[in-house]
């Protein structure tokens, strides 16, 4: 039996004005377990708290009920008081007789009556309270960043600068991601390479950062502070530590007709290649699907020309196992395939390109050395049509496209159009738009400049059909403001393709037990207040894996994620919330219902031995809750059919006791 003390607060007249506090403390005296009951003007004051502390000692109290304001206000205060008096802080319950009683009822009689009932419910609960201790777990002081684009780079640099070791896993041979492929960046028009490549070098030279390029995450186990990760380092058939990146092998490789991914297939690379001049790590990679030596054993030229002796045709995939305290997802995006949008003739003409292809076409390091030449005949295009929202903002039931706005297209199209008019003023540039969306610092000004200073022709309407004929692209479109159907003979058409999360994101989410939305974007723990955390503890989100974003937003989120990671890694031990789910193993029937409803993946099942009455041992499958991961929502407790799962601090028996007290 508990020895409970009841402390009724007047809160000046806030409570005492509508509730007869003396009557309440008197009435609660006779409740089971109550050995002491009093009332005082301000329980939260030092003097009030001293009353509680003294009573604990004097009456040997084991539980405390404070009838006062909302627990959201002073629960923490009274828990500290209890702890100071040597009591477990979770032996305190609050009856909310201010916000939910005295302030909302006018009549003293009914107010007092209700306050007594609320007090009784709290007493009934405390009778069943048990001391709770928060669990503790150690923290591995190392972070993993998955994805080496600008998001991953920024996050890694910030964490590393704070003094923690970071590993970046990048599936491509180099870090840099999409930003490395861009030409200029809006709205300032500084060159992407000029601002990105120094950061890539910083990453390469940082003593706290390791880069696993050409690598993929294979397996993730463990939980916040204690992740066990297996990383597959794919064989690149070049010894990374020996290769100097001189490029002699590339120059001599006879396989010259391999579509170059970095330039989106608009030119060719060799079977052994370095994606671009500023690649990090600057190390050659042999493409096993193109290399003659690897396919048939006939060639070996690169090995002969490599003076460093870095070529290794026998290299195998390598598996690296490492422990991490936190994981940051930065898997990024891709433009969607244009296959389903052939009314725009993307598959019929090489002169219909996507915006990312356009970036390569205007990039000084691109296939045309930055001269704007159309792919089919390398002629300068005189009329260019940009089409916005291709595959964005589609109906959920539509067979093609995405429901969301891709966010970046309005701005990069304005940039493209402006750059074309700037470099080639003889070019006619049309932009077909549905809405121009430019919320961002200096964004609308930028778009207006494209129109007003550079003479880009913005037309409200949509292209309906593109017909390649001769060396022209016949564009049929609507001009909604002029109420006309337009027919434009264009030389080049640029489609602002919607963006979608990288395909590697979904299997990764499964490994992380992190949740995703229907579009395969990672879900944040709270859409407003915890935007860089995944609901899975210890997993953080950076960049477009969470939703469409431009570079400034990506970098902000990357740094925010890094701050969260640092906040986790500086701790030596993680203290959990003790109000978590806990299964009664003897009642658990191993059905997995709880595992399925848990939004955090906190529940696992193990086979456990149970001694039987006949002295044999039976092995049963029972639920286990990871205290570091459980957030204490209680979804599992209701899903549990055998009633084995309960929530500490909010046990079924406690809630039922409250119900009974109220309904007496």
């Amino acid at each position: 039996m508990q020895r409970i003390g009841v402390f009724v607060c007047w809160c000046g007249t806030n409570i005492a004005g509508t509730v007869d506090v003396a009557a309440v403390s008197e009435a609660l005296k006779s409740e089971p377990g109550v050995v002491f009951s009093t009332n005082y003007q301000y329980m939260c004051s030092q003097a009030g708290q001293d009353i509680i502390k003294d009573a604990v000692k004097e009456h040997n109290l084991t539980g405390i009920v404070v009838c006062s304001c909302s627990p959201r206000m002073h629960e923490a205060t009274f828990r500290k008081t209890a702890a100071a008096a040597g009591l477990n802080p979770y032996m305190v319950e609050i009856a909310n007789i201010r916000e939910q009683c005295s302030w909302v009822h006018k009549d003293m009689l009914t107010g007092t009556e209700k306050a007594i009932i609320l007090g009784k419910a709290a007493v009934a609960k405390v009778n069943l309270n048990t001391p709770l201790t928060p669990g503790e777990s150690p923290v591995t002081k190392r972070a993993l960043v998955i994805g080496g684009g600008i998001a991953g780079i920024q996050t890694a640099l910030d964490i590393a600068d704070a003094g923690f070791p970071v590993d970046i896993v990048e599936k491509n041979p180099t870090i840099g991601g999409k930003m490395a492929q861009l030409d200029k960046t809006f709205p300032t028009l500084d060159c992407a390479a000029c601002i990105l490549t120094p950061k890539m070098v910083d990453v390469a030279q940082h003593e706290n950062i390791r880069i696993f390029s050409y690598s993929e995450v294979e397996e993730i186990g463990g939980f916040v502070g204690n992740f066990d990760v297996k990383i597959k380092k794919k064989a690149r058939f070049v010894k990374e530590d020996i290769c100097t990146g001189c490029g002699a092998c590339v120059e001599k490789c006879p396989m010259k007709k391999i579509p170059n991914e970095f330039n989106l297939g608009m030119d060719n690379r060799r079977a052994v290649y370095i994606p671009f001049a500023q690649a990090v790590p600057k190390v050659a990679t042999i493409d096993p699907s193109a290399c003659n030596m690897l396919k048939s054993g006939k060639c070996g030229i690169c090995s002969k020309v490599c003076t460093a002796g870095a070529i290794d045709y026998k290299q195998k995939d390598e598996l690296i196992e490492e422990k991490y305290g936190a994981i940051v997802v930065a898997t990024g995006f891709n433009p969607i395939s244009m296959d389903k949008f052939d009314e725009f003739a993307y598959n019929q003409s090489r002169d219909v390109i996507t915006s990312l292809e356009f970036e390569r076409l205007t990039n000084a390091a691109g296939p045309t050395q930055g001269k704007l030449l159309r792919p089919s005949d390398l002629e300068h295009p005189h009329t260019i049509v940009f089409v916005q929202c291709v595959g964005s903002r589609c109906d959920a039931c539509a067979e093609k496209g995405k429901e969301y706005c891709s966010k970046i297209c309005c701005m990069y199209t304005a940039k493209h159009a402006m750059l074309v008019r700037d470099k080639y003023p003889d070019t006619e540039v049309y932009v077909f738009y549905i809405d121009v969306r430019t919320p961002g610092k200096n964004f609308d000004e930028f778009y207006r400049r494209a129109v007003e200073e550079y003479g880009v022709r913005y037309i409200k309407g949509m292209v309906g059909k593109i017909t390649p004929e001769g060396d022209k692209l016949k564009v049929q479109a609507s001009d909604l403001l002029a109420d006309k159907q337009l027919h434009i003979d264009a030389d080049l058409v640029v489609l602002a393709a919607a963006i979608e999360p990288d395909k590697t994101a979904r299997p990764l989410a499964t490994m992380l037990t992190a949740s995703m939305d229907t579009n395969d974007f990672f879900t944040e723990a709270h859409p407003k207040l915890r935007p860089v955390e995944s609901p899975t503890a210890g997993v953080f989100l950076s960049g477009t894996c969470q939703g469409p974003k431009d570079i400034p937003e990506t970098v902000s989120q990357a740094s925010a994620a890094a701050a969260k990671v640092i906040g986790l890694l500086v701790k030596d031990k993680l203290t959990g919330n003790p109000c978590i789910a806990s299964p009664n193993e003897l009642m658990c029937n191993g059905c997995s219902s709880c595992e399925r409803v848990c939004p955090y993946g906190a529940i696992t099942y193990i086979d456990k031995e149970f001694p039987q009455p006949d002295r044999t041992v039976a092995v049963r499958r029972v639920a286990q809750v990871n205290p570091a991961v459980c957030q204490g929502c209680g979804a599992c407790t209701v899903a549990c059919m055998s009633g084995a799962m309960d929530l500490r601090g909010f046990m079924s028996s406690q809630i039922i006791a409250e119900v009974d007290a109220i309904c007496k």
Partner: protein
Amino acid sequence: MQVNEYRPLIVAFCCNWCSYAGADLAGNNRLNYPADVKIIRVPCSCRVNPMFILRAFQRGADGVIICGCHPGDCHYTSGNYYTRRRMALLFSMLDYLGIERERTRLEWVSAAEGAKFAATMNDFAETVAALGENKRLEDLRCKK
């Protein structure tokens, strides 16, 4: 005390993050609602086991209301969706048992909706009062 006038007994389960805070806000703004409503705090509406509701009716409650965060706003991301499904089933079972559908309610009240909390409680208390005492599910053995 007045005993002649019938007042209903109403149990309200409120999630800690939205609805309980909404109830506090109603208090801060001094928005009146009947004292018949007694609130029980739970971490999330998905902690509310249908057994608790049946228990309340068995013990003589006249109405039970469950309040959670708005869909999409759950502190635990998906808890209120579980609640929505579970309550749909429970309410339909209660309907089958002959308990008036109006005696149970599921409402989404955010931490900012003090006015909505008070309005909801006023409306619910009035509705339940009009139905009169819960006789069908009340267990007379539980009566003192």
